[in-house]
């Protein structure tokens, strides 16, 4: 995918360079077609391809923790304690390890990726222009839908008696998976200096 985009960009630069140096070549019909390809069609495809690549890149764990404020959240994925929900999911590959943040924090609605990107831009503003809040809180709280996106329909989840008893409250988001006292240890970054860390391969 990225190789295809690079080819488009290089081809577009070569064609645009020809028209920059000798615009008079467009008097011939074949060059008129090439001008349309090099100055309109290919650059448009480069915009679409670039946007797609950047959107995919911003779903990666490495991208999320490249912001200074997110570093401790990245570290919390390696906490050696199964009560830490994100660490448990990350270390046991219940979420793709290279997309760990996105898997649990994405908006899975139809315009979700776009909304996520807009929220991401406000976080970039906070990082570079104002000050990120400490501790970082998700606006509107963590939605159960992000858990249920994967867990709903899963046998171990559905057959659990506690889940079955409160299923309607979980689906309607009246009872939170995290703050109800059931799965209340998430990243817990304030306590990172007191916990043991898991090192892959050990």
């Amino acid at each position, binding site marked *: 995918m990225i190789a295809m985009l690079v080819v488009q960009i290089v081809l577009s630069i070569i064609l645009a360079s020809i*028209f920059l140096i000798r615009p008079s070549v467009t008097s011939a019909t074949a060059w008129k077609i090439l001008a349309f390809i090099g100055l*309109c069609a290919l650059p448009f495809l480069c915009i679409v391809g670039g946007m797609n690549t950047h959107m995919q890149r911003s779903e990666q764990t490495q991208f999320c923790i490249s912001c200074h404020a997110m570093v401790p959240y990245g570290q919390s994925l390696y906490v050696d304690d199964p009560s830490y929900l994100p660490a448990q999911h990350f270390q046991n590959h219940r979420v793709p390890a290279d997309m760990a943040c996105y898997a649990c924090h994405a908006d899975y609605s139809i315009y979700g990726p776009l909304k996520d990107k807009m929220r991401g831009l406000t976080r970039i503003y906070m990082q570079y222009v104002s000050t990120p809040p400490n501790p970082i809180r998700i606006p509107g709280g963590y939605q159960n839908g992000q858990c249920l996106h994967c867990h709903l329909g899963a046998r171990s989840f559905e057959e659990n008696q506690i889940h079955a008893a409160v299923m309607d409250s979980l689906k309607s988001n009246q009872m939170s998976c995290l703050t109800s006292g059931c799965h209340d240890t998430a990243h817990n970054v304030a306590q990172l200096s007191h916990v043991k860390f898991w090192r892959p391969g050990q």
Partner: protein
Amino acid sequence: MRLSEIGMGRLLRVSSALIILGLVVEIVSLVWYHPLSFVLFAFVGISLIALGILVYLISLAFVATRSTENRNST
């Protein structure tokens, strides 16, 4: 200033320069692994490329206008 005074060649040069500049910005944003790389691409790269495409389309309109004027004068 009218389009005929600017000339198609000049419009093509401006369009090419803007597109090359935008594509260079896009390459930088793809190589640079940083949260600001998306901002650079979205606000600088896309603007330059889109402006380049727009100038090219204006140059096409210029060709169409000139050929109509030539047809009317003959």
